C-alpha cells in the first residue's frame, strides 16, 4: 500500500502501530533513530529522531583556537573524516588569504580520494549487511583497512588523520609511499570482479535493491539531494566538476551516473566512483613526484593567530554528497561561527523520511544504508 492511499482513522486498528527503529538497532547506521508508523509491515510515515550523537560541534568550535579545531573537525563525520579537515582548512585559508602550495593541494586530493575509497568500501559492506549478506561486509571492511594502513603511514592516524592544517598538510609522503599506494590500487582493482560476483551482480541484491527507495530526479532536486545519491537519478552533478577546488580541474575523471534513482542505482554509482577514485589516484601517483615545493604555507604562531574578519563558504564533494562549511570570523582568535552542512542532514532526515514512507519495514534499513546517511553529520 502506498502512502497516498492511506487514510488515517480516528481509532487506529490493531494492525497499525508505532515502532522505534533505533537508536539501538542493527539496521540503523550509527546511533540514530527512526520512529515509524506501520500499517501491517508497510511504513505509513516515518520520523527521524536525531541527537544521539549531538556534541554541539559548532559551539565547541567557537570556544577553541583556530588551530585547535583541526583536531575536532574530522570527528564530525566518522566514516569519512578527511573532507571535513580539508574543508575547514580551506575555509580558514580563504579567510586569511593563504595560498596553499601546489604540492599540498595534490596531497590533499590524494587524501580525499583515499578517504572516498574507504567510505565507499564501508558503504558496500553496510549495504550488503542490510540485505543479509555479510561476506561483502567482511571484505569491504578488510579492504578498507588496507587503505587505513596507508593513512596510518602517511598521517600517523588510522581514521582521524588530522593531516590538514590551514596552509597545507602536516607531513610529506613517506618514502616508497606512492609505490605502496599503487600496489594497493592494483589490488583493489583486482578485487572488483570478486565484489561483482559476490555483491553487485548478486541476484539477491538486485532483487532487493531495485525499486527500493526510489526517487525521481525532480524529487531529488527538490529535497536537495547531492552527491552519488543525486547522480543515481541521472543528473551529472558533482562539486568537483561544477565548483572545482584544489587541483580537481587538472585531473581527468568521469562522473558516473545511473538512471534508476533507487538503492541499486545508488550502489552502482558508488561502485563506478570507486573506479574513478582509483583513476584519480593513479594520476596523482604519476604527477606528484614532479611537483616540488613546500607542503605548507607558513602560518603564524597558532597561539597568537587572529584570522581576519570575514566569511567563507567552502563546498566539497565528500563521499556522501555536497559538504558545505560556512566559517565566520570576527577577527578574533577563535571562529565566531562555524556551520557545517553535512550532506546527510538532508539524506538522513527529509529524504529518508520521504523514501521510507510507503516502503516495507525490512527495506527501511536498506534505504538508510543505500543513502549512505551518516548520523553524526546530522547531529554535529
Amino acid at each position, binding site marked *: 500500500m502506498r502512502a497516498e492511499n492511506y487514510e488515517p482513522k480516528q481509532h487506529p486498528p490493531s494492525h497499525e502501530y508505532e515502532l522505534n527503529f533505533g*537508536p539501538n538497532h542493527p539496521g540503523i547506521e550509527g546511533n540514530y533513530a527512526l520512529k515509524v508508523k506501520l500499517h501491517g509491515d508497510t511504513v505509513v510515515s516515518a520520523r527521524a529522531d536525531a*541527537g544521539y550523537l549531538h556534541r554541539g560541534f559548532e*559551539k565547541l568550535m567557537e570556544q577553541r583556537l583556530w588551530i585547535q579545531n583541526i583536531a575536532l573537525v574530522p570527528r564530525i563525520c566518522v566514516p569519512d573524516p578527511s573532507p571535513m579537515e580539508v574543508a575547514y582548512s580551506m575555509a580558514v585559508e580563504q579567510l586569511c588569504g593563504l595560498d596553499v602550495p601546489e604540492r599540498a593541494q595534490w596531497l590533499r586530493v590524494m587524501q580525499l580520494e583515499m578517504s572516498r575509497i574507504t567510505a565507499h568500501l564501508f558503504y558496500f559492506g553496510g549495504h550488503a549487511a542490510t540485505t543479509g549478506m555479510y561476506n561483502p561486509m*567482511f*571484505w569491504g571492511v578488510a579492504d578498507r583497512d588496507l587503505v587505513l594502513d596507508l593513512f596510518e603511514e602517511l598521517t600517523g592516524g588510522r581514521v582521524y588523520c588530522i593531516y590538514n592544517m590551514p596552509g597545507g598538510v602536516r607531513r610529506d609522503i613517506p618514502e616508497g609511499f606512492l609505490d605502496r599506494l599503487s600496489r594497493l590500487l592494483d589490488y583493489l582493482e583486482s578485487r572488483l570482479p570478486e565484489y561483482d560476483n559476490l555483491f553487485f551482480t548478486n541476484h539477491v541484491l538486485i532483487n532487493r535493491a531495485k525499486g527500493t527507495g526510489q526517487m525521481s530526479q525532480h524529487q531529488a532536486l527538490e529535497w536537495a539531494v547531492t552527491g552519488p545519491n543525486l547522480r543515481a537519478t541521472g543528473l551529472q552533478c558533482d562539486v568537483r566538476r561544477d565548483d572545482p577546488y584544489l587541483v580537481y580541474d587538472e585531473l581527468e575523471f568521469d562522473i558516473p551516473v545511473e538512471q534508476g534513482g533507487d538503492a541499486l542505482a545508488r550502489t552502482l554509482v558508488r561502485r563506478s566512483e570507486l573506479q574513478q577514485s582509483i583513476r584519480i589516484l593513479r594520476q596523482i601517483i604519476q604527477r606528484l613526484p614532479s611537483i616540488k615545493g613546500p607542503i605548507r604555507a607558513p602560518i603564524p604562531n597558532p597561539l597568537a593567530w587572529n584570522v581576519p574578519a570575514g566569511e567563507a563558504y567552502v563546498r566539497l564533494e565528500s563521499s556522501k554528497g555536497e559538504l558545505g562549511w560556512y566559517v565566520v570570523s570576527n577577527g578574533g582568535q577563535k571562529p565566531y561561527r562555524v556551520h557545517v552542512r553535512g550532506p546527510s542532514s538532508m539524506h538522513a532526515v527529509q529524504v529518508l523520511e520521504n523514501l521510507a514512507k510507503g516502503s516495507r519495514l525490512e527495506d527501511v534499513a536498506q534505504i538508510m544504508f543505500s543513502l549512505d546517511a551518516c548520523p553524526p553529520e546530522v547531529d554535529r
Partner: protein
Amino acid sequence: MKEFPVPVQTAEDPSVKKQSGNIFSNVFDELVRFAQSRSLFMLHYCTGCGAIELPPAMTSRFDMERLGIQPMVTPRQADILLITGYVSVKTLKRVILTYEQMNAPKYVIGICSCTVNGGMYWQSYATAKKLNDYMPVDLYIAGCMPRPEAVISGLRQLMEKIKIGEANSWQDYFKRYDYYLGNQQRLFGETWQTPTDIIGESKHYSLHTPETEGEHTRLLELHQRPLEPLEMRLGLSEKTEDR
C-alpha cells in the same frame, strides 16, 4: 550457554562457599567462569565515534570471533556493553536503560578518552563526561579512538578478569545504586526513572546493602509513576504527510 543461570549461582555468598571447601563446587565455578569468558556477546550499539573501529575488529582482519566475542543485537542476551566513545546525554539515558536490561553478569567497557574524562568534548553541554558516574565500568581502553588491536587486547584482558572471577563491577550497581542514581538524577533531573526495579533486583541477587537505598532512591520513589503503555507521540499526521 548464555542462559546459564549465573545470577542464581552468584546469589549465594561466594566467600562462604569458598570456605566450605567443596572441591566440586569450586571446579564447577571455575568451569563456569571459563565458559563465560570464552563466549562473550557484545551488544551492538554504537554510541560514539569509536564504533568505527569495531567493524574491523569484528571482521576478518582482526577477527574477535576467535576469542568467542561477537555482536549481539539485544541487550537481554548481551554480556558486554561496549561504550564506544562519547555518550551524549540523550544517548546516556538509553545506555542506562540498556544496561539495566542486561542480565547479570554484565560487563561495561569504556573505550576512547571520552568515557574517562570527557575527551575532546569536555566543553560540550551535550555529552556526559565520566562514564563511571552513571554505571560501574569494568575496563577502559585508551585511545581516541583505540585501534582494533587495542580493542582486542582490552577484550582479552576482560576475559582474563572474568576467568579469575574478578569482573564483578556489575554488583556494584546494585550495592551502590543510590550513588549512581544520584548522578543520573543530577544530570537528567529528579524525575528521571527507568522501568527496571533495581532495588528489587538487588534484593533478589542478595546484593542489597545500606548504600543501595538513600536519598536519591527516595526521590525516585517520590516521582516514580507506574509504566503506561506508550502513546503515539509521532505527531506525524498533519506535519509530515504532505512533504
